[in-house]
């Protein structure tokens, strides 16, 4: 059962990644691209967790946590760049 659920979830997040890629490629706006990148980070975190469940190890959980912790920082930086130009004022 859990395997079927994992396969289904992998499929969903994989499709999500491709959708993010489409948005990053097409834009049209910079804001769209940044948002797509941020969503991509979240999708990847999910995939890492799923992968950890698949293999039954906690190592991937930690990797996912670290990605979560630093992943949004670059999003913030991109946004500040768009909004204010200088990211550290």
């Amino acid at each position, binding site marked *: 059962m859990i395997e079927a659920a994992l396969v289904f979830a*992998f*499929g969903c*997040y*994989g499709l999500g*990644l*491709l959708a993010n*890629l489409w948005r*990053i*490629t097409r834009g049209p706006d*910079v804001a769209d*691209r*940044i948002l797509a*990148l941020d969503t*991509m*980070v979240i999708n*990847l975190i999910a*995939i*890492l967790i799923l*992968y950890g469940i698949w293999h039954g190890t906690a*190592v*991937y959980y*930690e*990797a996912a*946590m*670290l*990605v979560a*912790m*630093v*992943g949004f*920082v*670059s999003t*913030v*930086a*991109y946004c*500040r*760049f*768009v*909004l*204010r*130009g*200088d*990211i*550290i*004022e």
Partner: protein
Amino acid sequence: MSSGSSLLPIIAILPFLGALVPGLMIRAGRTACATFTAAPTILALVMLGVLAPDVMRGEVIEARIEWLPQLGLSASFFLDGLGLLFAGMILGMGLLITLYARFYLSGEDPMGQFYTYLLLFQGAMLGIVISDNILLLLIFWELTSLTSFLLIGYWKHLPEGRQGARMALAVTGGGGLAMIGGMLILGNIAGSYDLTDILTQGDAIRASEWYLPALILILIGAFTKSAQFPFHFWLPHAMAAPTPVSAYLHSATMVKAGVFLLARMWPVLSGTEAWFYIVSTTGLITMVLGALIAIFKDDLKALLAFSTVSHLGLLTMLLGLGTKFAAVVAVFHIINHLTFKAALFMSAGIVDHEAHTRDIKRLGGLARLMPVTAAIAIVTALSMAGIPLFNGFLSKEMMLDAASETVWAGSHLVVPVLATLGALLSVAYSFRFISHVFLGPVRDDYPSKPHDPPFGMWAAPGFLAVFVLLIGILPATIVGPLVAVAGGAVVGGELPYYSLKIWHGVNAALVMSMIAVAGGLVVLLLHRPLDRLWQAAPRPEAKVIFDALIDASAALSGWVTRNLHNGSISRYLAIFVVATVALGFAAWNGGALAPATRPMLPIPAVVAVGWVLLVVATVLVVTMHRRRFQALVLIGVIGLMVSVGFVYLSAPDLALTQISVETVTIMLLLLALHFLPKHTPLESPLWRRTRDGVIAVGAGVAVTGLAMAFLTRDFSTISDYHLANSYTGGGGTNVVNVILVDFRGYDTYGEIIVLGIAGLTIYALMVSLLTGPAARRLRNTDYSQDRSRDRHPLMMVVATRAMMPIAVVVGIYIFLRGHNQPGGGFIAGLVISIALLMQYMASGFAWTQARQRIQYHAMIGWGVVVAGLTGAGAWLAGKPFLTSAYGYIDLPGIEEFGLGSAFLFDLGVFLTVLGAVMLMLYSLSRIARYAGETVNVEPMDYDPSKRVEAIRNGGE
């Protein structure tokens, strides 16, 4: 013996230690400075005197300190007769020159500097003559080239001094390079780099097929140093040095280093046809040519310089003859030449000092004005001419004796005739030196009225002149034992029959000598017409040729450099990439590639999606890179996918590092991009872009092929060793971290230093940037257009405050567990710096900076210090640098845990990484302040708690 072996290294090191003193003592006055220069020399002389009786009895004193035994390099010294003779000459002359220079140098010359250089040179020279290890000898050999460069160029304001110094360094340094090759070959043949071993293996070395290359390379080294034809031209140009230097380096010691080497290697290298023809012919040509040029030189020092060239040729010829007798004569002549030539140089210096000219045409009649100097100069010049009762006569007679019995290429006449010619010319220039400078009528047009100098100045040459006479009259008593022991060391066995006395009866040498004196007188009388002839005759000018050679080679290297390094990074990359791919392709086609042994793995769908993301994003970066910000967003995608790829391929450490580095890099680039154009203009033509595209695709294909080749084959790597020894050797189960802090700790130590340097360099560059024209541009550009008014949003500030402690705890956690599980100082440093960066972004640079106390510069420094001290701690346990130690600690309340010295080392890594990253961001952020940005004092734009307070205050 035991006391001797401990004294020898001290003698070697004394001049170097002493060299530190004169620079300081000059503050106490010139006499004090000279006294303190003499002190180490006297001390070394005394120690040498203690050792001398043993050496004179025929013992060889040895001292050995292992240095790099793996390379055959040891700091070993030995003192035999030859070493004793030279060491005595170097130290004794050093003392006399110290005294002479005290009076010679004027008040404007930096005397402390001079004495420091002099002692350094003395140490280097001493090292050559007492080194037992030929690698050590080479080091001292190069040191003499360097220190003589400093001494020749001592009068930095004179262009001749600078050019002469450069020429001497180029020639002797180049010869030194050749000699390194020769010595390495020699050491290889002998199987040892110790002279004492090499000297016992003469037969094996001469029989080796590598004998000739070794001989030629060593001879190039010796000939350049001892100014042998055709390398003799540097010596006269080195005469731009102050006279004490000329007397010390260019007559007594340094130029004798080549001769010393020939003598030292005599038992090993001589005795073959190659040796005889190369060495004796070179010596003979140099002797005649040097003497011939000397006759027509009007500059006193140039005359003496060419005479030195001639006498060095004589010594080389004697050693080249290959007979034991000639070798002993060479040793004897080394002593004689030292005494008369150094005194002559000093006399010339006195004349120059007093009359303010050394042009022979402007001098004459000085015997009446400066009788003491004249007496010294005449005694020593007569010795140089080889007149009986002076020591030069004795060795010249013995030289002619040796020459008269030499057969050169079947001819019995060549060597004796040329030797007589050399002696004849030598008589001519010596007599010219006497008659044209000191004899004749007193003139009234000297640039300065000459008179005898103070005692201190003529004491040294006077002392030497006394020796000239003493040796000349009582040779066997004064220097007999020394010649015997030094000559014995050269010939390495039984001494040949010789006798040091004035009268040998009427023999061939006496006849040749008489011809020489008579002929010399004739040349002197005919000097005027001969001089006109000489000046009119065309002859090659060494300096012009040398300068042309140097210019040509400089132009060639300039051409190569300009074409390879034209300042365009794309060209460097193109050359590098094409060359690497071509080499790789050649290796690929070499046929050594084993067939693939591993099957391809299946590709899961999710991984394929990730692959698509990576490929599409990479292609997009290429097509969109002119819009810089969009390109940065896409780089974010690539970084993310690479990190996840590392996770998938079981490299969690790399993934953690990658994602942190990625984030920090993006922020750095964004910071810089703010002040840069947002678009890259199209600058290169289509063909160039096509070419670069082809190169890039080629490189990509090559790397792919290489990766595939490795991934599909089984092979063993060093990883297996690391995996096997990580826990037992390094005390950790995280192999990556153990490699970083233990197996390759030295690398890591170097890398954190480099990282620290990079951080400091960025800081320094920013400081200089902000004081230059760029700062003006920054001030005059308005960056604030079109900005959002949300400067420090409330949401972000609050989120950061919640995040900061969590991030710091995670950082510490990752740091602490690093040795056994994914993590470590490097990642922890990055995580904590990201947390701090968040704070900087949220509440602004100035607000955050005002709330942190630690200087990032200091953090880098502490990091390196902590790591270094940890490494050095291993010394206390008697282990090599950076050997890690670990153990288990059982604290009540918590589980038993392992703690290693690697932990402290990792702390150093952590501090350096954190400091360097923060310093870089700090430096880039400073630009904004220059761009006229205002400083915020509040942590956020709108603080709701303030409003609550305000209402409360208003309500009351």
